[in-house]
């Protein structure tokens, strides 16, 4: 019943059509590289060299030591020295500095008298993310400095210390987070933007009847149309992961085979969904827009790629359960960074199989209705 020849013929036709459409090709091959470079080079949340204004009203050896501890950490750089608090206002509003360290008069005297010596860190809270991280660094620096000052010449320990260790990404580099997540986003773009066109195009150009008149089976059409995009998708994954390893030094700790298998399942599901949307919408423009909303945006925003799912409100959190990219990102991070196998990822694997089945099922079902 099913014939490989017919399936390949559909695939070849689709490939030729794709080759003639330069902007689709740009999307397929240039966008992944572009996204990788953008996210890999331009974007980082690694907060370093926070620009600080300094108001040292004490101007003693002790206060200078504290400032030195800030600068030596590498996280802060004093870019302005102020004489009066009034100037700070201007600097913060103009975003010249991210914060200001204020050492009040009497700092050294308080320290010598064994009274608590307060210092103040004023932060530009309008960038909450940077400010939170900066505050965390500052607290660690001050706590360390305080300990050194207190323990000078004494043998006493802190009452309680937390030893933090970061697994999988010890230096907390955002590149290591970005590359595995990006794979899922790129897959979604390929699926959404490219396959969404395939069947709608046949409708718009009136070639659907011709396709229906040929002896080709609907499964052959669906899989034939899938095949070129599947190859492009697989190529893009290899490209992204490869570039991540070679250019950005992201470690690959797990099994290539496992990642490959999961990617195949995810791609099948996503491409099936794209074809389904295309078959239902019948218009290229509508199909791309719907596909973008249905697959690309959730993959970017609701998958845990950039934003933590646990912090979202319950309704949104529940919705992320049906976002396939969420599971796929857990797989890419698990395999690439954690080096875990199927024993840790079987839930995701199961979701991936369901997704592939649903995607392909929908695509085939939607297609049958139209042809018969």
């Amino acid at each position, binding site marked *: 019943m099913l014939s490989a020849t017919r399936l390949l013929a559909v695939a070849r036709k689709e490939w030729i059509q794709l080759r003639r459409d330069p902007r689709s090709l740009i999307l397929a091959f240039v966008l992944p590289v572009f996204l990788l470079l*953008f996210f890999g080079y331009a974007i980082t949340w690694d*907060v370093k060299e926070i620009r600080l204004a300094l108001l040292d009203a004490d101007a003693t050896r002790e206060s200078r030591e504290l400032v030195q501890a800030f600068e030596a950490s590498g996280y802060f750089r004093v870019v302005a020295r102020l004489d009066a608090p009034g100037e700070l206002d201007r600097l*913060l509003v103009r975003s010249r500095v991210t914060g200001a360290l204020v050492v009040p008069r009497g700092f050294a005297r308080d320290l010598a008298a064994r009274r*608590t010596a307060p210092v103040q860190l004023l932060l530009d809270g309008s*960038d909450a993310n940077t400010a939170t991280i900066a505050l965390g660094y500052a*607290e660690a620096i001050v706590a360390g400095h305080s300990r050194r000052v207190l323990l000078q010449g004494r043998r006493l320990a802190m009452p309680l210390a937390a030893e933090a260790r970061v697994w999988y990404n010890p230096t907390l580099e955002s590149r290591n987070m970005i590359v595995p997540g990006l794979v899922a986003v790129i897959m979604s773009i390929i699926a959404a933007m490219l396959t969404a066109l395939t069947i709608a195009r046949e409708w718009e150009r009136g070639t659907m009847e011709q396709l229906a008149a040929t002896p080709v089976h609907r499964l052959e059409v669906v899989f034939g149309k899938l095949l070129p995009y599947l190859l492009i998708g697989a190529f893009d994954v290899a490209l992204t992961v490869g570039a991540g390893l070679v250019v950005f030094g992201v470690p690959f700790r797990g099994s290539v085979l496992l990642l490959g298998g999961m990617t195949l399942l995810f791609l099948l599901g996503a491409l099936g969904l794209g074809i389904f949307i295309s078959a239902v919408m019948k218009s290229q423009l509508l199909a*791309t827009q719907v596909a973008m909303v249905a697959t690309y945006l959730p993959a970017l925003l609701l998958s845990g790629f950039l934003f933590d799912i646990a912090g979202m409100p319950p309704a949104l959190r529940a919705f992320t359960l049906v976002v396939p990219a969420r599971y796929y990102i857990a797989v890419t991070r698990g395999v690439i960074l954690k080096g875990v196998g199927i024993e840790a990822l079987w839930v995701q694997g199961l979701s991936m199989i369901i997704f592939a089945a649903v995607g392909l099922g929908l695509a085939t079902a939607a297609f049958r209705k139209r042809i018969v």
Partner: protein
Amino acid sequence: MMRSLQLRRRSSVVGRLKTDDRRPTTDDFPLRRVLALVRKELRQLFRDPKTKRIVFVSPVIQLVLLGYAVNTDVRNAATFVVDLDRTPASRELVDVLAAGGQFRVVGRSERPADLGAALDAGRALLGIEIPRGFAADLAAGRGARVQLLVDGTSSNTATVAQSHATRIVQQYGQRYAAARGAALPGGVELRGRAWFNPDLSSRVYNVPGVIAMVLMLMALLLTALAVVRERELGTLEQLMVSPITPGELMLGKTIPVAFVALIDLLLVAAVAVFWFGIPLRGSVVALLLGASVYVLAALGLGLLISTVSRTQQEAFMTMFLCFMPLIVLSGFMYPIQTMPALFQWLTLLNPVRHFLEIVRGVFLKGEGVADLWPQLLVLTAMAVGVLRFATARFRRTVG
């Protein structure tokens, strides 16, 4: 190939017709032609109830969705506890950790291996291991230790979670020591205070940014397809044989969308203020002025895309390819400060960046026109430049 040939031939005919027909008459002042086109565009836009929904409902949905999703605060982070000490003190420490709402205990065990498995499977983001003898060390002032394990695969969440957890543990130790009179007196204490956003809520920072993004998307979507649609439907020729000039045509295409986008601005700003409770501290006039020029710049960009595309599909793809870098290099979600110098320079060419500064300035910092004039000026220059370029380009493609 055939198609483009045909197109070229057709447009040359159009060009001839246009020059023949353009004899300005005395009773025909330019504004009337523009107004007629504006009326036509508005009618076309609102004839379809689906478009009305896209234009007015989808920005609000986008703002609500993004406002909740785009969030870098750490809340309810899944935490796995391995308590080998099993004393009141160790239980109290875990309670304190979970009390702030940042961490939620999802599992407990007495085997450290379970903690590793929970992190491996992604069931937990943070693990805390309290060693045997914790309470005894704490009571004796010997310097008790606990271990925190953080899943670093999501580096920004991990950074924030680690710093919160460390702080909570240290504060617990200090309180414990102080309660027993065992604390060392003195020392340096940091008092952090955040301006403009005292709770350091990331929503306050992100929602104004979403406004800029939503406006850009709306303006691009509505204009990028405008000219191409006329071309595809074949109505561009009709427009060309009418006495309208390319400049007037551009104006007629721009005004209705600018009008719609400003209504969208009011809608999303209202949602930001009344739904998300983002304070609006600064000058509304500055916001409106900024939004007007920003929307014009966005429209110019959309029209430019429209004039270089042959089909709606091409226009959509081009729009998508432009939209990504505009957002990524704007300072929305990703700080500009940490980008390499080259990218920092590039952001200066990005209208979204300048409008973001206006939106955040007005919403968070309480600024007005007096503070934001450089951004307003830059945006105005961009709007004029892009619109002029789009018109010139359009004249060339039809002429």
